């Protein structure tokens, strides 16, 4: 076995740009997922039956089907309904965002349910509505609880985002494939790609535990 180190070094600039794009779609998707997840998670435990049911269906469907199939649904199947091509970037962040929204909804639900119910009672007994109490009392405290699982979700999505390479979106994995198509350096490029993913996930998990410690002392 002969490892072509020069190829690895030379491919780095292109791959690092791809890694930047991977981080970008992960961050946008998690941001989108956070907004979706907050509302779906709250809907999951509110006292309106219809909302609860809708939230449950949303979560079940997105966690019960593969992300790859969801990406195909949005990129290939949706245009047949709306009669218009979907931009790969939009398809990528939509699929990843909607998908992580389902996982984050469950994270949120657990985070909210971990708050002592006396907090809700105290808010309501002061005349605040359910929504006001959620907004000012419960959700801000829940955010603190969900930082660690949210960090895990970010890492999971960062890795899963490699799936959008199948629709030709040029993130890290896709760039690796393209370089291999030119150089036939499967071994070198996949090792480099794997190492770049590893560096990213390790950095994020360190960042999350640092944030966790800071929040805990506050």
């Amino acid at each position, binding site marked *: 076995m002969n490892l072509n180190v020069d190829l690895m070094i030379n491919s780095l600039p292109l791959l690092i740009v791809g890694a930047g794009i991977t981080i970008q779609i992960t961050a946008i998707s998690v941001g989108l997922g956070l907004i979706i997840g907050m509302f779906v998670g709250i809907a999951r435990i509110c006292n309106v039956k219809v909302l609860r049911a809708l939230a449950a269906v949303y979560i079940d469907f997105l966690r019960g089907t593969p992300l790859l199939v969801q990406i195909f649904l949005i990129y290939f199947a949706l245009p047949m309904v709306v009669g218009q091509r979907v931009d790969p970037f939009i398809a990528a962040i939509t699929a990843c965002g909607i998908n992580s929204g389902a996982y984050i909804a469950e994270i949120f639900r657990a985070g909210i349910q971990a708050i002592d119910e*006396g*907090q809700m009672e105290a*808010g309501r*007994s*002061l*005349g*605040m509505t359910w929504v006001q109490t959620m907004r000012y009392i419960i959700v801000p*405290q829940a955010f*603190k609880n969900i930082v660690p699982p949210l960090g895990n979700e970010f890492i999971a999505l960062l890795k899963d985002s490699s799936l959008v390479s199948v629709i030709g979106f040029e993130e890290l994995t896709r760039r690796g494939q393209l370089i291999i198509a030119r150089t036939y350096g499967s071994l070198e490029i996949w090792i480099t790609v794997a190492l770049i993913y590893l560096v990213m996930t390790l950095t994020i998990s360190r960042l999350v535990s640092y944030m966790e410690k800071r929040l805990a002392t506050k």
Partner: protein
Amino acid sequence: MIDIKNLHKSFGDHEVLKGIDLHINPQEVVVIIGPSGSGKSTLLRCMNLLEVPTSGSVVVDGMDLTGDADINKAREEIGMVFQRFNLFPHMTVLKNITLAPMKVRNISREEAEKTAQELLERVGLGDKADAYPPQLSGGQQQRVAIARALAMKPKVMLFDEPTSALDPEMVNEVLDVMKSLANDGMTMAVVTHEMGFAREVGDRLLFVDGGTIIEQGDPREVFENPKEERTKLFLSKVL
């Protein structure tokens, strides 16, 4: 001020309140005692609908909580103090007190903070405005909780075992605040195990057991001359 008629409350098959009739006059201090599981806390929690009655009516200050009254509006007039304080741990003491007046009563920050500071002085914690609840002792937290409830300028105050979670040496600082409230003419319903407070501050004592009011009257009278066997038995254990 509070008018309760034929109040029933069940949790599943378990009937906790079995037909309570109770009228509390303005400025009256009613102390509710009874063994644990007697339904006294549930009765109090029905007075601001934290527990929804199974049947019967609860009317507070002319608002029918079991009827068509806006429950959020009604709760603005009914302050509540909990056994475990339930302060908002992520906010300073000052914010704990100003939040509801600003969000619910739409009072300006300036005015809400001024009122909050006055209330903190009143409960002896004028220097704690910027502290966070977890930094305070239990007794201090409960006094902040009382100030928080008072900031809404309620017409009635409900106390649900306000000293039961406190270390013994902190009980009096809370009872003193409650005493001064009573002296100022606040209408109060107090569930407590503090018999000294009941005797000294209460206008009326209610002994609740098995989901009904067994006996009620002037606290001194009930303590010295209980008429019912169950009252005698209970008092012999706690006095």
